[in-house]
């Protein structure tokens, strides 16, 4: 009896520690199935079906597990700037009045500065001491600048689906020596509820906005970074370059398409500064452009959706030129 109590106590403590610290050992099988991804730029087309070898590693399970579930990648080598080519327009539905868009050439100024059309002014000889012709007064028009009163309200975006609340059923199994399993389950559920603040359970197809901050493997991170960066344009020459950093919260759909992108709450407080607002909107526009029309982000769909459904992206413009 005494021996059983002692063993039970040790095992309970062990289980509690595992639950509190995320049981990293149990992610090992999934991590072990991944192969080392090459540190090269991979196009989004190639990554729609990422290569994941299904090697049996039963023998390797006996070896020491890796120290991290997703290893922290070494600094990626400097990659050449991706060639930004204008995207050909996708083939839209044919409508009657549709005009096939052509590649927009650089328009020449329709009104060229052609002062040659003006008559050469005759020099007027003025008298001393004013020896120069008084210039014609430059008219200064008075203007009224007023905000448009009838700004139309843009169509409301569809509300995101409400999170369903699932109530856990209370388990009220009787416990006795033969029902020890039920007693353990009850105790684990109670202890977990006590350890973790009560949360609404998020359905499996909703972005998981809370979790442990992690980084993707080096190759995947480079692919995602380059994919977004190719959509990120800036005029350059910003006076505050080097000080501009904006954090975007990117929510992904299970099929790796973009669901939503928002400027983080902390950075929204800075949107009153026109320079910062322009920078932040530019970054947000980059993600929106990369996700427009249902484009798929280069994410490993083999990985659990809960791992990559929520991405924190920090944009920084470090170079003035």
């Amino acid at each position, binding site marked *: 009896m005494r021996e059983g109590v002692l063993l039970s106590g040790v*095992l309970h403590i062990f289980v509690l520690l595992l639950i509190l610290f995320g049981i990293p050992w149990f992610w090992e099988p999934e991590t072990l199935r991944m192969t080392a991804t090459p540190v090269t730029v991979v196009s989004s087309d190639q990554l729609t079906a990422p290569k994941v070898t299904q090697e049996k590693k039963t023998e390797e399970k006996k070896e020491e597990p890796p120290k991290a579930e997703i290893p922290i990648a070494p600094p990626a080598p400097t990659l050449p700037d991706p060639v930004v080519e204008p995207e050909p327009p996708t083939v839209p539905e044919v409508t009657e009045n*549709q005009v096939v868009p052509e590649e927009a050439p650089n328009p020449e100024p329709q009104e060229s500065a052609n002062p040659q059309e003006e008559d050469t002014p005759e020099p007027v000889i003025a008298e001393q001491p004013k020896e*120069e012709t008084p*210039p*014609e007064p430059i008219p200064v028009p008075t203007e009224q600048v007023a*905000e448009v009163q009838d700004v139309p309200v843009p169509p409301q975006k569809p509300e995101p689906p409400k999170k369903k609340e699932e109530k856990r059923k209370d388990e009220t199994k009787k416990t006795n020596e033969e029902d020890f399993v039920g007693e353990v389950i009850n105790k684990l559920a109670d202890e977990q509820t006590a350890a973790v603040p009560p949360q609404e359970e998020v359905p499996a197809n909703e972005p998981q906005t809370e979790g442990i901050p992690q980084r993707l493997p080096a190759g995947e991170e480079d692919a995602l970074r380059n994919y977004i960066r190719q959509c990120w*344009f800036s005029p350059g020459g910003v006076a505050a370059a080097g000080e501009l950093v904006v954090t975007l919260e990117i929510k992904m759909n299970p099929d790796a398409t973009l669901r939503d992108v928002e400027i983080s709450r902390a950075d929204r407080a800075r949107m009153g500064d*026109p320079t910062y607002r322009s920078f932040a909107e530019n970054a947000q526009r980059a993600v929106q452009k990369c996700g427009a029309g249902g484009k798929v982000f280069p994410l490993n769909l083999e990985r659990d959706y809960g791992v990559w459904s929520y991405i924190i992206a920090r944009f920084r413009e470090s170079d003035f030129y």
Partner: protein
Amino acid sequence: MHARISCIRFALVLLVPLLFASQAQAVIEIDITDPNIQPLPIAVTDFTGGSAEAGDLGAQISAVIAADLERSGLFRPIDKAAFIQTAAQLQGVPRFPDWRLINADALVSGAVTQQADGRLRVEFRLWDVLAEQQMAGLALTAPANNWRRIAHRVADAIYSRITGEDGYFDSRLVYVSETGPATNRIKRLAIMDQDGFGHKYLTNGKNLVLTPRFSPSTQEITYLSYVNDKPRVHLLNLETGQQEVLGDFPGMTFAPRFGPDGNRVVMSLAASGNTEIYSMDLRTRKTSRLTNSPGIDTSPSFSPDATRIAFNSDRGGSQQIYVMNSDGSGVTRISFGDGRYGTPVWSPRGDLIAFTRMVGGTFYIGVMRADGSGERMLTSGYLVEGPTWSPNGRVISFFRQDGGGSATRLYTIDLTGRNERLVETPQDGSDPAWSPLIP
């Protein structure tokens, strides 16, 4: 039996936590730096009008807006032939997918109305095509013959909303128009809109004029003119045509430049073989000497906050750029490169100083920070000189000569060194000076 139950308990205790293990979630973090420096694609539709005349005017206004934005180098107007939705269909909310289809990031729509008093009312809206929302909307009214200024103001509003910086399209350039052979060069003051329209001569060429400079706050120009072969700094009011000489100094005054508030002028005065920098209060006409060195101190330029002055001096043995307090104290050298530095001009943004540099027979236009760091050459040539900043401190105008005896032309260039463009003038041009935004 007892041992078997214990083993079952042990196994279950190990396996049950697996049920809860899947609750651990992850948030991916990623850092992205250094965007692509490219112009933003924007669709500028023809502004609609209630009448044929208003419609024509709307088309002209949108053309000026598109030209302004394209000339800045920060925008790429999309060809109107690619538009799917017509201007008339944009009275309500645009069909944003149609504009995304042609890769427009922003969209401009507008309408022109002729009021009963003959004035024009121009409304425009700026749309974010990707976010599908309106970014800006304004209405402006003005006499009908000032429709170009309305167009420039609209372009300024679009530029400002998207870039976060002030615009510069509703401004002018004054410069020295040059004609004739080198031995008998006629130089006249001329003024035009920053896009080259509305060109006018301010002087008749009888007297040599040099170094015109705009007041940053009023419609006044200061310039050097040789009247009766005597060089003097003159002040010209563009609105009234009134001219005056800024004092009668015992010597030669030149290189005048306004202070930021327009109430002061700094200039060089050469007397008794020495050239120093003086400041004059235009309201009291009181002058004060700012420099005191045996070298040649000239080309002063105020910082936009009026606390400091940049100038060039050869007091150190070679012509270099110095910065001092507005009272003449705290002189500090900030240029240390090879060759000679001249014509420093402080940016209206306050972050950079443009200058001319001569090294090995080649001229350069460059910029550096006020402490001398970050020196960067923007352009070079046989002769490039006389930088002047746009009102928003983003664009520099200068003049260029490609070889001895060749034409002298005005150019503009972005402060990043991109987008160098020719400014068309009737004759040769030099010494440009950029006005502030027209009030």
